[in-house]
């Protein structure tokens, strides 16, 4: 059944107007049921609530018998179901579980997962915590009393989305298919190398050379160009998603956590593709920034006007830094770099596992602290967790030093 035939729920989210007489504004959002289902995190009952017995079978395969101590119910699992049982620890979403299942067994039959889930829930061996997909939509919102507060609330609840997004992105992809050919990839590498060499050579020989008046005047232009770069970054993700024949679910502008303005492209459908495709889509965004930075630095070298040239050097440097920043994986955020790392290591939910390992290994409560040696996977989680904490700390220190250096 395709998405069009699946039951949908459409909600209207209203933003009240500045006065009781005003209608305000509204947006409508559609939720396809399976999208909700894929975000739930099934959780098996605590380890002390069940016992497990491994049984070998005549056909040399192995069965696992799970005994719920309280209800005295039994669940017999085959190897695939045991794998699902292990994965359903409350950290993985159903989408993560499906991906891990595909990586392990090479098959993607969501029906198996559903059937297993139904059995396990019936025997009360697995629970599904409330999905928070619509929690923010359904949360009670109180109306600020001042016009400033209402204005801020209106701005923060902004969510502009392109309509018919998949069709439109598909049309753009058809016109720009040449960007996804082998000669284009070769050109990107050549541009990047040339651009980097040019940028490094420039900054080693001279610094940024723009008078403060020019900087003030050029600041809005710089901000606009960086904003366009961010839009192109997201567009690159979306076009790459279309290149692999998957659906782009949304493309728009909103405030992340109602604070940080972002442009976004929902390419989660790429999870239904192979690992190579997922890695390519994750890399497409930062790659576009690296190429734009390279082109800007080459143009800066050729332009005969010093102010324009200096401005372009600065823009190239900032665009390069933004792209490299999005490629950096160890900051406990789901950046492009994080997704690349997670896919390369074949570990979905790497962040959540890292957090759990850090809690277990460094808990203040001695009773809860894990004392056994970490397994191979657990070393990876710990390394990621410690690297992320160190990176966040270094970033804070770096910013503080930068600020202090101005004084």
């Amino acid at each position: 059944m395709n998405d069009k035939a699946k039951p949908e729920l459409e909600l209207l989210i209203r933003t009240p107007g500045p006065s009781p007489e005003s209608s305000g504004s509204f947006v409508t959002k559609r939720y396809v049921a399976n999208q909700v289902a894929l975000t739930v995190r099934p959780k098996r009952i605590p380890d002390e609530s069940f016992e497990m017995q491994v049984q070998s079978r005549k056909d040399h395969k192995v069965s696992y018998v799970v005994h719920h101590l309280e209800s005295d119910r039994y669940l017999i699992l085959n190897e695939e179901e045991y794998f699902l049982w292990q994965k359903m620890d409350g950290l993985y979403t159903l989408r993560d579980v499906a991906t891990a299942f595909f990586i392990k067994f090479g098959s993607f039959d969501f029906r198996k997962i559903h059937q297993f889930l139904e059995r396990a829930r019936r025997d009360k061996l697995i629970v599904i915590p409330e999905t928070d997909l619509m929690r923010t939509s359904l949360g009670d919102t109180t109306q600020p009393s001042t016009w400033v507060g209402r204005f801020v609330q209106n701005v923060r609840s902004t969510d502009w989305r392109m309509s018919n997004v998949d069709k439109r992105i598909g049309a753009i992809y058809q016109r720009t298919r040449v960007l996804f050919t082998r000669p284009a990839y070769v050109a990107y590498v050549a541009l990047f190398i040339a651009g980097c060499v040019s940028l490094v050579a420039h900054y080693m020989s001279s610094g940024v050379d723009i008078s403060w008046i020019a900087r003030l005047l050029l600041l809005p232009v710089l901000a606009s160009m960086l904003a366009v770069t961010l839009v192109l970054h997201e567009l690159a993700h979306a076009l790459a998603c279309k290149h692999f024949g998957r659906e782009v679910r949304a493309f728009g502008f909103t405030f992340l956590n109602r604070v940080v303005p972002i442009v976004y492209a929902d390419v989660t459908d790429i999870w239904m593709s192979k690992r190579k495709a997922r890695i390519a889509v994750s890399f497409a965004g930062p790659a576009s920034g690296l190429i734009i930075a390279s082109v800007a630095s080459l143009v800066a070298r050729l332009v005969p006007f010093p102010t324009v040239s200096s401005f372009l050097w600065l823009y190239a440097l900032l665009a390069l830094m933004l792209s490299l920043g999005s490629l950096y994986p160890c900051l406990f955020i789901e950046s492009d770099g994080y997704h690349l790392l997670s896919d390369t290591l074949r570990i979905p939910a790497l962040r959540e596992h890292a957090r759990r390992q850090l809690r277990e290994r460094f808990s203040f409560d001695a009773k809860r602290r894990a004392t056994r040696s970490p397994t191979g996977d657990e070393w990876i989680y710990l390394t990621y967790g410690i690297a992320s904490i160190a990176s966040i700390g270094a970033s804070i220190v770096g910013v503080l030093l930068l600020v202090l250096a101005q004084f």
Partner: protein
Amino acid sequence: MAFSPKPLRKDQIKDCVRSLQSVTLFADWTATEIGEFCNYVQIMPCPAQEVVLWEGDAGDVLYMIAQGSVVVSRKLKGDVETVICRLHAGDFFGELDVIDDQSASANVQTETDCLFYTIGRETLYRELERNSRLQSKFLLALLKEVAKRLRTTNQRLTDAILWGIDATSLDTG
């Protein structure tokens, strides 16, 4: 609501007749009958993102959509509402409130710039009572539309339950 209906000017009546001919309520009316009816109809343009009717408002006006589209919704919780349906040019709303003299049962807001033709309950009843033939044609058309919407509601109820089953991963089929 800041937008109020206004009486039709003479030059607007032709357009009104043309628009009402595509409204299902008047499908069996002749152009002359609709033309006479238009003398009692009012016009109301409305920009996008405006609420035409709030749930609970006194409902005594029938709205016929000449241009644009509206979203009909009911409040769930806080600022979140469930979308019941969308109506477009040729559709109408407010008929339940006109029939049973109750307050509006849903919010209606314009999704695009709209043009409505409206008629008040008292005026509608008065004009229909003067012509029993028109009254039966109107009521039959209204009944058919209400039946159609009831079927749509039944289907939506089934869809909502299916959605809940799928969303909580209970479905194995």
